[in-house]
């Protein structure tokens, strides 16, 4: 089966802004996303997820390169200054080009 190159955008951030981030990503061209609860630590200290304000979420979005960069840049500009946020991109291959 033929494979198509796409980008995987990974965003780890505060659960408080999950809804907003997903909305923005959809608006900027993502066809889907996957979310899961995570814990972690970084520049803003430990986030253990023990209660509401301390919860983190990891979002994964597979999409085209341009879309991925557009979303990443928007998120970094809009949220990273004030929220715990980590963003990276990776190369992946998908089989159903039209889906992503």
């Amino acid at each position, binding site marked *: 089966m033929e494979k198509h190159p796409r980008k995987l955008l990974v965003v780890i951030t*505060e659960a*408080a*802004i999950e809804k*907003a981030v997903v909305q923005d990503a959809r608006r900027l061209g993502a066809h889907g996303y996957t979310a899961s*609860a995570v814990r972690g630590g970084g520049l803003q*200290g430990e986030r*253990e*997820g*023990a*209660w*509401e*304000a*301390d*919860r983190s979420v990891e979002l994964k979005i597979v999409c085209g390169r341009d879309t991925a960069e557009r979303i990443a840049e928007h998120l970094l500009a809009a*949220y990273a*200054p*004030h*929220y715990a946020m980590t963003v990276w991109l990776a190369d992946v291959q998908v089989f159903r080009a039209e889906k992503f």
Partner: protein
Amino acid sequence: MTLDPVVLFFLLGVGARLARSDLRLPDALYETLSIYLLLAIGLKGGVELARQDLWSLLPVAFTAFLLSATIPLIAFPLLRGPVGLPRADAASIAAHYGSVSVVTFAVAQSVLARAGVEAPPEFAVLVAIMEAPGIVVGILLARGLSGGQGPAAGWGVLLHDALFGKAVYLLLGGLLIGALVGEAGMAPLRPLFGDLFRGALALFLLEMGLVAGGRLGDLRRAGPRLVAFGLLAPLLFGAIGLGAGLALGLGAGGVTLLATLAASASYIAAPAAMRVAVPEANPALSIGAALGVTFPFNVTIGVGLYLWLAQRLTS
């Protein structure tokens, strides 16, 4: 008077953090207990509410609303001036103190029950009334003057979240169901929502102790002036609530509850709302003060003090 066991659970939680124990309560338990407490408080209040002349509650409801809206206006200049915080942080913390803590309210009910003082359960409605106004005023303080633009997330979203956020929704839902089914209809639900209440509250305070104990590091960074604010604010706002309760002619139980609500700071609704509405405020400061100082103060000393004063001043 020995400490309420419920408060000892809080200290047990704090101690676990200080001793670096691996004790953690599962997230799902925390969420379940908070849903349970909100429903239980609501149901009990609703049964009582249905028995009351609603008009007679209007004065205290209106007073509670005013208290919640006014407290941030007092807190803000204190936080700007003496504590020396930037506008966004001062406004955010002010919002936390304008809003209320439902668990502190529950502890006050428990303390009143132990002391044999009648506590009007219908005051649960005040928790719902006092949740949002302080938050709105806090956002206005952060935004209104600094260029006039609205909150980061839009007023519509914030208003919706305040009214239909799970805390207020469950509390109002419980009140409504309690009022609709009344004493008799509630009977089959009493073993869960009545008898277990104190035990569930104890467990929840264990969790709150773990969370609060984990924020003590934030406090150190926040500095002694914010800690002092966290200790004085409940005394100041509690006194205002006490005065308001006396002026309304409430009994000792009612006065204690109103003082407690005024003295308490939100650590559920307000943090979420301020995070979205005023992102540039540092949440470690507001949560450190509300949960690391004021909440422990209220549950260990404050509530007992408000009750002692209320008894002296109403008799």
